[in-house]
């Protein structure tokens, strides 16, 4: 009995250690999205690009599309931008949500840095972002043909993230009816 009890601490320790080892690989700040598998909450965004209307959530159906949340005041967004432009050139459909700033600032930034978006809208108050569960920028949602969220990328889309995670997913979504 004593021997069994004496083994208990080391046994528990091994379990805890294993937990730490696996836990170390995770990023504690990244939240899982509550929308995975669900349709986008309904929204209608104000216009961002001069002369163009904004867009509504209902318009993001019919084909797999990325919804990219960005802002001109966001540093990593600037680093992500060239990747998005390249994706656009490759035919990927990206919708842009300009988060928590005036439409004028967002439009100016797009004009200066390039515009990868097929649709773009402005969310000055940030409420639509909060409805999407956004806690920072950049974030990108991957939507399927039926407008359901299948994946959320927290942080910038790097070439590695694209090739390893999002591109295969998009291919799969394309194949879906």
């Amino acid at each position, binding site marked *: 009995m004593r021997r069994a*009890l004496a083994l208990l601490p080391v046994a528990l320790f091994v379990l805890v250690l294993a937990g730490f080892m696996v836990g170390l690989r995770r990023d504690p700040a990244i*939240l*899982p999205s509550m929308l995975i598998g669900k349709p986008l909450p309904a929204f209608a965004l104000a216009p961002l690009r001069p002369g163009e209307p904004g867009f509504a959530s209902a318009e993001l159906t019919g084909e797999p599309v990325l919804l990219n949340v960005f802002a001109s005041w966001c540093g*990593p967004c600037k680093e992500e931008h060239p990747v998005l432009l390249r994706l656009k050139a490759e035919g990927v459909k990206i919708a842009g949500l300009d988060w928590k700033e005036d439409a004028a600032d967002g439009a100016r930034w797009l004009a200066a840095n390039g515009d990868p978006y097929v649709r773009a809208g402005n969310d000055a108050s940030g*409420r639509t972002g909060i409805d999407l*569960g956004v806690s*920072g*920028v950049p974030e990108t949602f991957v939507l399927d043909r039926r407008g359901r969220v299948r994946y959320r990328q927290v942080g910038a889309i790097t070439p590695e993230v694209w090739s390893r995670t999002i591109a295969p997913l998009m291919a799969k979504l394309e194949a879906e009816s």
Partner: protein
Amino acid sequence: MRRLALIAAAALALAGPALAVTPDEQLRDPAQEARARALSQELRCLVCQNQSIDDSAAPLAHDLRVILRERIAAGDSDRQAVDYLVARYGDFVLLKPPFQPDTWALWLGPLAVLLLGGAGVAVYMRGRAARPESPLSVADEAEAARLLAADKGD
């Protein structure tokens, strides 16, 4: 990859005061405001490092405080107002973890450790009391008896 902008905001939030609610955020009705304050203290600021939205000056915390107050002013119960945010951000926004199967160990653990430990101690003490103390082995006892007897002879 970190969102540098948000980290900067969070760093500034560290420099800001708790009781981060501003006068213009506060609700008119003191009872509702008190409810909002109490609930805010149990909601996590998602872009900070371990602060509640009541304590943090981060912009997102501000937004969440405002939303919470809107829900309360609109007539939501405490549960409904909080659920509104949980629907968007998940259980992570709750500083008090919900009581559900994957948190049973978390909530019941402390008492369990105390009770199990107490039971262990009780069993151990009873087991010890049942076995009498015998610091000497049989051979030693005999040797001691021989020495004592020899001593008496002097």
